[in-house]
């Protein structure tokens, strides 16, 4: 009922808009020039009509032109680093101003929820804006990764998944059990789809990438991070993980420029392993002596001491039995990323536009894998009348990924070479197939571990995404104090996947009656369409009730529809070699997936201001979710927050600005998938012509209701010594209730999982941002900023029985070490088996002298509890140098690499007892063990039984980014035709670890793209060091 009323209200709103179009007076045109204190023209200064969203920017000569509706209107002039100036229009038609240098923050405007611009000083919650200039020189192909270390409260990790990989972004710890974790991404005021398209798990798979990663960094002006629930209350469900607002670059009034940006960087693979190179291939201390023995032991370094002698290999040839340390370097190549972007911007009196075209050519470090991304972006703003304005955004992306790599422990993963025995040069595996028959050459005892050269020569996994993110927004300014706005956003992506197990893949050979049927298979030839439609309308007022009291309020409604449909065909084995067509298979299969959801919402926001130093904001939102049963579909969630600029009341020496803020907010959420609230039966493929039926092993829940998240936040902002030193601090506590999550059940219940609505987690945290300008002279400026986040998560409840909820694993330790949500512990928690200890604390071994399994213990969370970054920027003349160091403490890693390093005799630890064997511990009952176990048996049993040896410490400090730039002085360019400005920057990212605790691995490495696989590592692409050059040319 409420929803129907709301829909009608929108209709009425539309009618009012229509009827009132002609009822306001004509405009006055004001022009003028904005200059600094020395009389220099300020280009790009902002001129707004106070209390409205109407605004203009000055052109290159400092000139502006703006329409006002009455003589009482007040023009506000602002420019970053200068004091704001307010002038009443009166009878003037030309208004020139000189701005004086001042406090940047006092008049800083930030974009907040729903795209509403507000003065930073009036906001009662934590907001951080990152400008694109720090993101797009030393760039990441997924711009999400560029936020790492930049924003207090934000934790970002990439995935070692090759081209088009996901950026895992977590706001304020683990935001909820249920979520994939990623914040809501809003582009120019309209949410975009950021679905993670699949992730590798313990059984292998590829990282399907996310939605954010499609954007071209060159099109982005800035990214604003709304951290708390107050900030995001107006966006509803998905904003419970925080919100990242992306503002794209736009044309500015009076501006006409053509800009070219080239960015060329190289990705250099890094080998983090620190294995033993004393003993070589073999088992039981012996070298292989036969071809089959060599094949059997290709990934076993339990052989003899490396002595340089000639030893047979799987291919029948003899090779030196000596250390091969360069397999990573030899197998992978130096990757490259080459981006070219051209953009044209132009601004006129009543409108502006920007058009850009960009091409990214990314060659992965994995030979034959790469990505080409073409992006076309158009933004336009137009005043149709003095009251009616329209904004448009169209962002078209064509992304083609070639040979998207398989990760983790599945076949056709090319990244297993690092586990080869210490004396094998990976290059002897090339070309990986028999040139005559095309059949894979199996190099090891396990043909599910595909020959890496076969993979890079034959594997096909091509993903083509065509995506259009579009938005149209209209705004009608009835009067200086009232406006209405309607927006429609449509994000449509089509993914075409062609994934082939190549003909010749050894494990895929199929025979019948001794006759070869074929090999390989078409895993998937599919087309998936994913759309998100957002329709949003609101009416806002913005008025001074008395000179002291202002009100800024809006009421609106939103409809969001998400649709997903995927059709795929496949089959196998291939009959003819090399023809990877759907018709060339023995058996066919097909798949169809669909998911449709809708949310309807109404919301309001009221902000009351008193003398511009005290602001009180309250919001409320009612959401109805299609994914929930009709009885429990809707929920109202409120928020309230306040900001007090206390330095306007009391003057404290050296304190130039002080603000205290506090907020309380509730947001709600829905199940992550559709159709979870009814029982369904399916029809499966026929068994020898007999139709079959089935039902999902995931038990639906008929009684779900929206989950909620509440947050209390207090913050303090201080600026000292004329803004030379700043502090922004926030403390918060959050709690979720009735979280909808998958519970794991024992298969003996008839189901392996179920949907429950009982989850609850708590986060408490502290965020600090310290900024300073230690040096500021005419020749040199040094800016420094340090951010710090401390967050503590605790799972309060899981399912009704408070059973742990299992998440991920890796296949090396499958079931014996997992991540899980455990009540009372921080999530996701690594659980692994300890030694079994005797009462005197000694470890217990079995009759063979091998360590036995003790208790399953909680080893710590996979998410850091303390993290942040330190950024330094030096500006001297035309040069600037900046570097970012970030740090990460308190998390653990479940490492398959470490486990395999023990099992396969690669870990340095396995050198102990190689010659002598190991006699350790006590037997059950307490008597000293006298049985000597061989090192191979001991460490194999250790890796299997005592999985805590596979759990590593994730702490690190990393030298993340370095940029060194030079702006060619304008004086040098005055005589150069065409060119107006040139900036050239040398950049480097992910340069080196200043310190890290984990050996053998990169503590940031992971194969899984979501919370489920956070902190689980193994057999993904090597991490890379990235360095290059960025060239930016602006044309006249």
């Amino acid at each position, binding site marked *: 009922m409420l*929803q129907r009323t709301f829909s009608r209200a929108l209709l009425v709103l539309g009618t009012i808009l229509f009827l009132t179009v002609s009822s306001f007076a004509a405009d006055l045109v004001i022009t003028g020039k904005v200059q600094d204190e020395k009389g220099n023209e300020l280009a790009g200064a902002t001129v707004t009509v106070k209390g409205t969203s109407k605004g203009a920017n000055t052109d290159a000569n400092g000139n502006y032109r703006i329409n006002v509706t009455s003589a009482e209107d007040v023009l506000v002039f602002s420019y970053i680093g200068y004091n704001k100036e307010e002038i009443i229009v009166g009878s003037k038609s030309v208004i020139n101003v000189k701005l004086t240098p001042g406090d940047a923050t006092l008049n800083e405007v930030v974009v907040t929820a729903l795209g509403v611009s507000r003065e930073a000083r009036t906001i009662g919650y934590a907001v951080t804006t990152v400008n694109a200039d720090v993101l797009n020189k030393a760039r990441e192909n997924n711009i999400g990764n560029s936020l790492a270390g930049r924003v207090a409260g934000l934790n970002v990790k990439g995935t070692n998944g090759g081209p088009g990989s996901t950026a895992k972004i977590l706001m304020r710890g683990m935001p909820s059990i249920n979520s994939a974790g990623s914040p809501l991404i809003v582009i120019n005021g309209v949410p975009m789809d950021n679905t993670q398209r699949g992730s590798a798990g313990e059984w292998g798979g590829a990282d399907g990438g996310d939605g954010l990663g499609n954007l071209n960094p060159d099109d982005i002006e800035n990214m604003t991070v709304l951290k708390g629930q107050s900030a995001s209350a107006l966006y509803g469900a998905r904003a419970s993980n925080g919100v990242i607002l992306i503002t794209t670059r736009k044309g500015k009034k009076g501006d006409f420029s053509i800009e070219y940006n080239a960015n060329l960087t190289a990705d250099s693979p890094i080998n983090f392993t620190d294995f033993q190179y004393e003993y070589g291939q073999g088992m039981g201390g012996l070298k292989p002596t036969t071809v089959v023995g060599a094949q059997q032991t290709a990934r076993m370094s339990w052989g003899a001491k490396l002595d340089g002698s000639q030893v047979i290999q799987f291919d029948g040839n003899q090779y030196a039995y000596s250390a091969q340390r360069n397999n990573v370097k030899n197998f992978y190549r130096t990757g490259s990323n080459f981006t070219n972007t051209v953009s044209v911007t132009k601004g006129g009196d009543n409108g502006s536009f920007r058009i850009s075209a960009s091409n990214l050519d990314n060659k992965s470090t994995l030979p034959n894998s790469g990505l080409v991304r073409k992006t076309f972006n158009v933004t336009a703003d137009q005043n149709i009348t003095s009251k009616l304005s329209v904004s448009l955004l169209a962002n078209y992306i064509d992304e083609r990924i070639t040979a998207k790599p398989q990760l983790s422990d599945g076949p056709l993963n090319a990244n297993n070479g690092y586990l080869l025995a210490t004396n094998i040069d990976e290059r002897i595996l090339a070309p990986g197939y028999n040139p005559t028959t095309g059949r894979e050459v199996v190099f090891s005892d396990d043909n599910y571990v595909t020959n890496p050269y076969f993979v890079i020569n034959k594997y096909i996994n091509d993903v083509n995404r065509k995506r259009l993110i579009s938005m149209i927004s209209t705004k009608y300014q009835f009067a200086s104090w009232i406006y209405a706005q309607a927006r429609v956003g449509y994000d449509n992506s089509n993914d075409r996947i062609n994934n082939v197990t190549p003909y010749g893949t050894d494990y895929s050979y199929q025979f019948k009656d001794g006759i070869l049927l074929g090999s390989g298979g078409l895993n998937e030839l599919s087309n998936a369409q994913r759309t998100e439609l957002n329709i949003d309308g609101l009416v806002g007022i913005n008025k001074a009730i008395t000179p002291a009291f202002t009100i800024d309020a809006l009421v609106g409604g939103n409809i969001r529809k998400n649709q997903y449909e995927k059709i795929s065909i496949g089959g196998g084995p291939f009959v003819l070699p090399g023809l990877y067509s759907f018709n060339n298979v023995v058996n066919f299969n097909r798949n169809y997936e669909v998911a449709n959801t*809708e949310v309807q919402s109404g919301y309001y926001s009221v902000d009351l201001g008193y003398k511009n130093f005290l602001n009180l904001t309250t919001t409320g939102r009612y959401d109805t979710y299609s994914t929930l049963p009709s009885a429990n579909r809707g929920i109202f969630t409120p928020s309230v927050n306040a900001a007090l600029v206390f330095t306007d009341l009391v003057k404290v020496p050296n304190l130039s600005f002080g603000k205290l803020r506090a907020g309380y907010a509730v947001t709600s959420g829905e199940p992550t998938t559709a159709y979870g609230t009814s029982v369904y039966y399916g029809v499966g493929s026929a068994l020898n012509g007999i139709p079959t039926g089935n039902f999902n092993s995931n038990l639906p829940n008929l009684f779900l209701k929206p989950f909620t998240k509440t947050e209390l936040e207090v913050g303090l902002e201080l600026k000292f010594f004329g803004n030379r030193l700043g502090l922004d601090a926030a403390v918060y506590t959050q709690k979720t209730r009735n979280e909808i999550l998958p519970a794991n059940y024992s298969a003996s219940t008839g189901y392996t999982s179920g949907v429950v609505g009982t989850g609850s987690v708590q986060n408490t945290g502290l965020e600090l941002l310290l900024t300073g300008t230690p040096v500021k002279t005419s020749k040199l400026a040094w800016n420094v900023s340090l951010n710090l986040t401390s967050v503590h998560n605790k799972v309060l409840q899981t399912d009704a029985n408070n059973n742990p909820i299992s998440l991920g694993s890796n296949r090396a330790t499958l079931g014996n070490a997992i991540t899980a949500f455990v009540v009372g512990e921080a999530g996701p928690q690594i659980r692994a088996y300890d030694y079994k200890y005797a009462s005197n604390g000694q470890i217990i071994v079995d009759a063979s002298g091998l360590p036995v399994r003790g208790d399953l213990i909680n080893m710590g969370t996979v998410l850091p509890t303390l993290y942040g970054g330190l950024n330094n920027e030096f500006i001297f003349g035309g040069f600037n140098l900046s570097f970012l160091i970030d740090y990460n403490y308190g998390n653990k890693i479940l490492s398959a690499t470490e486990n395999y390093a023990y099992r396969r005799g690669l870990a340095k630890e396995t050198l102990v007892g190689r010659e002598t064997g190991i006699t350790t511990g006590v037997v059950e009952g307490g008597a000293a063990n006298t049985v000597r176990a061989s090192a191979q048996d001991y460490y194999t049993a250790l890796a299997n039984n005592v999985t805590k040896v596979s759990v590593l410490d994730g702490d690190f400090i990393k030298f993340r980014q370095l940029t060194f730039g030079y702006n060619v002085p304008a004086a040098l360019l005055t005589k150069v035709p065409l060119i107006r400005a040139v900036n050239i920057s040398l950049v480097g990212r992910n340069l080196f670890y200043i310190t890290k605790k984990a050996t053998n691995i990169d503590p940031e490495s992971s194969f899984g793209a979501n919370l489920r696989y956070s902190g689980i590592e193994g057999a993904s692409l090597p991490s890379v060091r990235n360095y290059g050059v960025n060239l930016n040319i602006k044309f006249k």
Partner: protein
Amino acid sequence: MMRKKLIALTLLIGSAQLSCTDNFDAINTDPTRASSAIFDPNLLLPSIQYNHVNANSGYNGPILFQAGWIQILASTTSGAANYYSNADKYVISSNTNDYLQRTWSIDYTAASYAYEMEQLTNNNAALVNLNNIAKIMQVQCLANITDTYGDVPYTQALQAKSNGVTLPAYDSQDAIYKNMLSRLETATAALSSSAALPTNDAFAYKGDITKWKKFGYSLMLKLAMRLTKSDLATAKTYAEKAVAGGVFTSVDDDAYVVANNANGYGNSNGQALTTGADIYQVRWSKTLIDYLKATNDPRLSVVSEVPVDGLAANQLVTAGNSTPSAQLGLPNGYDLNGGATDISKSPNYPGGTGSGADATPIGKYSRPTTIYRNRDAPLFVLTYAETELLLAEAATRGFTVGGTAAGHYKNGVVAGMQSLAKYGTGGTISSTTASTYADANPLVAANALKQINEQIWATTGLLMNFMESWNNWKRSGFPALTPVNYTGNFSNGQIPRRQPYPTNEATLNTASYTSAVSKLSGGDNWTSRVYWDKQ
């Protein structure tokens, strides 16, 4: 005016997008699946049947565990890297913990389908047969699970949806067996040829309710005979009830599912045996081949071949030499690592085949023939041969089952050979050959239990029903096997007698699991004995 129209149009188009939430139920209805209102429970029967046989084949456990434990198959793979070490040497591979939970997971899934089929047909007189078949199939699945793991959830199992039980208690195997036998009795008796027949039967019965009735009683016989060591009285009672009800009478009554790889219902044994590494590494055990050769068993040339000489040929499926005299079983417990347990150090090592880079040290050992390298091959549940052999034992023990022990034994031996024909013409052994063999190798009363149970072992093993070979070995002690004692093994040099519980039971069903483990004398390991497996 133009402008107004434009605006009006925009707004109207915008408003047209608005809707109300009345259609939310429709939006949240999965268009690809059915509600119970239109679902036909008959469709679940083939899903039960396939999942159950799949839980008992291939990498889902048996070919990597039981097949080697009871020395039907052997393999020289070793170390942590290869999965056949689990079977041949009781040495973990990197994925052992995965393999050991698959029978549990898949067979409980099968049982869950059966339970749901029962629920959907309760109080529906027209579907009384389907309802009782659902009960029989639950017994079939749960018996397999309890035989493999010991005490398991039974009375509270499968009820997450119907009763909200997510932490089912484990029942003692003693109680499970008693309940299964009485349940079978009721359900089998209730099958009626006058009611609707099941329409989607994946067994060769094609819905024939007479055959289903025989299946129910034959299953009862098998379960009854499991108890000969632990509860002889119950064994006798139910074995006699089974015979009175009517058990299998010919190989046409064999319960099996023909796999259908094209549609995703592959034979997991066939899949394993056509995988590159497995073609090379999986051989018949010396124990089996010696047994078959000792009596010139006609099955030898059907099931066994020595590959063409040389490493490359050993890795291909090309048919080898099936001459019975050439067959040689691979001794269990050896590797290719050059040390003391290298195959070349085995007694009477025959040498390899091929030379140079094409040399293979295991080239002279027999491997399964082409009939097994078939992903569409049948997967056996229970055969007439087993039934007759169990009746031979029952008669030997003095149970009232009709006929003579020797007569049942002969029937069992002949049937065991004839069931191989279900693998296709390559598996056919003529009835004359089979009878001639059976007559030449009659049951000797003094040696009856040994003969009968060795025959069950060979018959089920050659039909690749390794679970059954293993369970019957546990029960009967035949054949007498010499365990492998390979360094670093997980069962203290003993042949494993159960599979440990899936590792996630400790976290998913903690209290029940802990309680069950506390009742295992040796703890949750590979050598603890299940209830009916008395010393």
